[in-house]
């Protein structure tokens, strides 16, 4: 929480530091609402979403080149998150689809959207509610691994599952 507050203050300060337009603090703060019950972990009891032994701590789904098909090896992971959403009606997720750097930025944005949608559709089939899920795309704009080779590209063809408040 402190960290997020710090980031907020820094972005507020930097927003004042230049005449160039910066996004408003409101825009930055939006979506930063923390569900503290889900994050605080006193002692040894992990929240299920953070427990390294729980499949729910796994948050990424990977794809083949130019494909948005959800591979069978990720079904269990996606279904587990869907069931968590089903059982926790207040929980919400943002699904961010990503692509590798090759090709048109806008076309990749649409391809990343299809990847995020593939996860969303599986979640809806597995008990999550429409209002709990927003699927969006970051296209090729936010690579997890920089580099111009297959190893980097493989890591970047991905959908990330992000819970609200994280």
């Amino acid at each position, binding site marked *: 929480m402190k960290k997020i507050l710090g980031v907020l203050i820094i972005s507020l300060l930097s927003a004042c530091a230049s005449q*160039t337009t910066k996004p408003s603090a409101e825009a930055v703060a939006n*979506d930063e609402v923390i569900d503290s019950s889900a994050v605080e972990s006193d002692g040894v009891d992990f929240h299920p979403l953070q427990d390294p032994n729980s499949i729910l701590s796994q948050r990424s789904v990977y794809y083949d080149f130019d494909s948005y098909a959800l591979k069978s090896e990720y079904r269990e992971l996606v279904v587990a998150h869907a069931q968590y959403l089903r059982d926790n009606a207040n929980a919400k997720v943002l699904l961010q689809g990503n692509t590798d750097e090759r090709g048109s930025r806008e*076309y990749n944005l649409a391809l990343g*959207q299809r990847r995020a949608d593939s996860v969303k559709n599986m979640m809806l089939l597995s008990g999550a509610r429409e209002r709990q899920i927003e699927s969006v795309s970051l296209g090729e704009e936010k690579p997890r691994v920089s580099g111009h080779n297959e190893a980097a590209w493989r890591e970047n063809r991905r959908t990330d599952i992000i819970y609200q408040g994280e």
Partner: protein
Amino acid sequence: MPIQFRPFFCSIWFLVLWLISAPLHAGLDIEIFGGGTTRTPIAIVPFSDEDKLQQSVTTIVGADLERSGLFKLIDSDGLRPYAPVEIVYSDWTQRGASALVIGRTALMLNGMVEIEFRLMDVARKEQLAGFLTVVSKTQLRAAAHRIADIIYETLTGDVGVFSTRIAYVVKQGKKYALQVADADGFNAHSIMEYSEPIISPAWSPDGSQLAYVSFENKKPIVYVQTLRTRERKAIANFKGSNSAPAWSPDGKRLAVVLSVFGNSQIYLINADGSGMKRLSRSSGIDTEPSFSPDGRSIIFTSDRGGSPQIYRMSVTETESGMAERLTFEGNYNVSPDFNQDGKSFTFITRNNGQFNVAVQEFGSRQMQILTNSRYDESPSFAPNGKMILYATEIGGRGILSAVSKDGQTRQNLSIQAGDIREPAWGPLPKEN
């Protein structure tokens, strides 16, 4: 054509490094490769008292003309005629100049600068164009670009684009800046800076606003920003992704790509964000719309046929799944941009693993590949339809490049530091 020029055949590759003292916010350095086979030889005599000004007007004029690839600068070699009566035409015939530019400048008591300019036909010994104007010192570059436009228009018959602006995105470290610069890369300044990506800037038809996509809020959202006031507004912030803004020619609405109802599809939305309605309907991806100059149709990228290709559909009041496929060569054709003459479009084609700039006429359906680089993106036509600005890569760093529509002339525009991408060539200035 009022006069005839001897064609000049350029046998060697030609390289000009534009080296003018870098301003504080270093602009773009420009390099020119190649050059058209036929270039008009023109001599530009430094104007009188130019050395007393902060900017040499004739240097800017010469660089503009040279960059177009259509002119060859002839050294004036110490000759200094300032007025028509001072011209010895045989001097210029000997030097091979078909056209001659002369003029004067005068610093006035109020700090303004008077500029007189004349374009002379060497063979006919007569004036083709000219003007007398008074500008402030900060308008010297703009006045020089106007002179270059007049010369270009008089000698080629086409509209000059030296007074236009370009927009692009620079990534420096972890910072992204949406910048606007003059077409020659000078006067670059940031419109918007942030630590999250910015893509797809699009000029409003009157040049007063930019639409763009920002990722500042964990997802892509389309903003419209007024350049003069810096005011901005999210015009498409629906659930899901919002991207690929394209202005209709009347500036009243934009085509955008939304995933609010699932699949990325093309929608129309008013410039104030109201009145969203669906335009395309397919089970695939529809994205990257670009309006025809008459506003009655769009071209766009769709994978409805299995691979991304360029399609055209009419912009009617009702949504439609009907579209005509335009590209058939290769299995990856994306990022279309309409030529303002309405007769052709530019796009990126994947060609033996490379991504290259191509043009295609609507009539002949012939595709012509214009570049041979590895990784070109985001082609954007100049408002006169003669050049195409695009992003490419050298040594892993993004730079801007421009290629003539016939592929004959190519120039690199590179910023001092950082990765530069997502260029958009702005419209012709309103006054003219």
